[in-house]
């Protein structure tokens, strides 16, 4: 069977990786290509690069970076951040991205998913959902780094995204992201019961045990994490060895 994937996520601003608690208080942790290569060598199954540049110049820099990543990295990588049109998708495809992820722009205009999947195939499009549990206990998708709640209920939005052609769902609990207290595994398992495409779990990993939990109890196909790798607390190789010892099928 297909192995569970471990995916480091690199937030990129002006060609450098950054990561902050709950997307705030950014801290520079290194060159994006070098860090990606290091991760690939230490056993990362894929990489995700998120462009968090806010300016046009920043976006242009990111496209150049994607070309450099594609030249140097021999495993698949996804890019995301600010993709709101078929043209954006085409530009990143040409630069060498294997997949793109869309988030707020797909909520604003869901047909974007159909357009990208229709033109480049479902394998090329990941729909990222940043969700929060509301006071009534229902999970809703948010935009703008979790600061804006939308009317899109998590599960129905994920099903809609799949029907429109999404190849994977990247689900981040904004209630858990950056807390390092683990993932909401019950919610992940429920999501896995509703869609048939792979689910990447993001936001909340503090330990290998947390990642093991979301891959087993949470039924996620992949786990995405940033901080625990960026700050060198555990290498990807060591994490995968521990997961293997917990009888989780990973590529060693």
């Amino acid at each position, binding site marked *: 069977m297909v192995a569970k994937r471990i995916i480091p996520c690199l937030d990129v601003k002006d060609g450098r990786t950054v990561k902050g608690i709950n997307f705030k208080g950014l801290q520079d942790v290194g060159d994006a290509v070098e860090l990606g290569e290091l991760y690939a060598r230490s056993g990362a199954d894929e990489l995700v690069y998120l462009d968090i540049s806010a300016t046009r110049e920043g976006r242009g820099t990111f496209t150049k970076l994607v070309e450099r990543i*594609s030249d140097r990295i*021999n495993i*698949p990588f996804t890019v995301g951040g600010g993709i709101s049109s078929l043209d954006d998708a085409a530009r990143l495809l040409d630069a060498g991205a*294997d997949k793109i992820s869309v988030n707020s722009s797909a909520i604003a205009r869901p047909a974007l998913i159909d357009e990208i999947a229709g033109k480049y195939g479902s394998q090329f499009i990941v729909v990222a959902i940043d969700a929060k549990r509301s006071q009534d206990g229902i999970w809703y998708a948010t935009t703008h780094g979790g600061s804006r709640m939308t009317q899109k209920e998590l599960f129905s939005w994920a099903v809609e995204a799949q029907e429109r052609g999404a190849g994977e769902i990247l689900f981040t609990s904004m209630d858990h992201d950056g807390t390092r207290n683990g993932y909401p595994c019950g919610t992940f398992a429920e999501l896995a019961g509703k869609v048939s495409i792979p689910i990447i779990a993001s936001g909340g990993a503090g330990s290998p045990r947390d990642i093991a939990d979301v891959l087993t109890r949470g039924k996620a196909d992949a786990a995405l994490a940033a901080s625990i790798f960026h700050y060198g607390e555990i290498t990807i190789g060591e994490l995968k060895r521990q997961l293997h010892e917990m009888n989780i099928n990973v590529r060693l």
Partner: protein
Amino acid sequence: MIAIIDYRMGNLRSVKNALQRLGTEYIVTSSPSEIMKADKVLLPGVGNAEMAMENLRNAGLCDVIRELRQPVLGICVGLQVMCRHSQEGDTECLGIFDSKVMRFTPSDGLKVPHMGWNRISNLEGKLFKGIPSGEYVYYVHSYYPQLCCDTIATTTYGGMFSAALKYENFYGTQFHPEKSGDTGELIIKNFLEL
């Protein structure tokens, strides 16, 4: 010189980069004469098999490919169009490999597309020189080539399917060697050394 066939089926950049990392010279072309002259030919492809066949027909490349005598490697949809038939769009393909391409049926625990790293086993021939059985390679696909007499590697996902095929000078991998880390790089190197 290696010819990468450009028939407007997805991005060729990762295949080009893989050859570059190995220090190999290549051209990207849709010209029959350049393809026929090349020492080796790569037929990549991402997307839809029906459209891929249409593009090959429109470019006048179907017979050109069938008649090649140098080593040819089809990757993903590039392999699929070298089979007999694809269920995707009920498409007649080039008929080089004696295999039919079928869609995975989603079921509990079997997600479609088949995406990620899976093992290859039952490895045969020079393409897999130095690669132990059970090694992981990277897949992204919703359609798979059935097992047949040309199968030279298998992967299990739901059932067993052809991870790689070989008929005479024609090779194909359903997985993406250009995205399969060091293992994939070795497979491409093996192909280049055929």
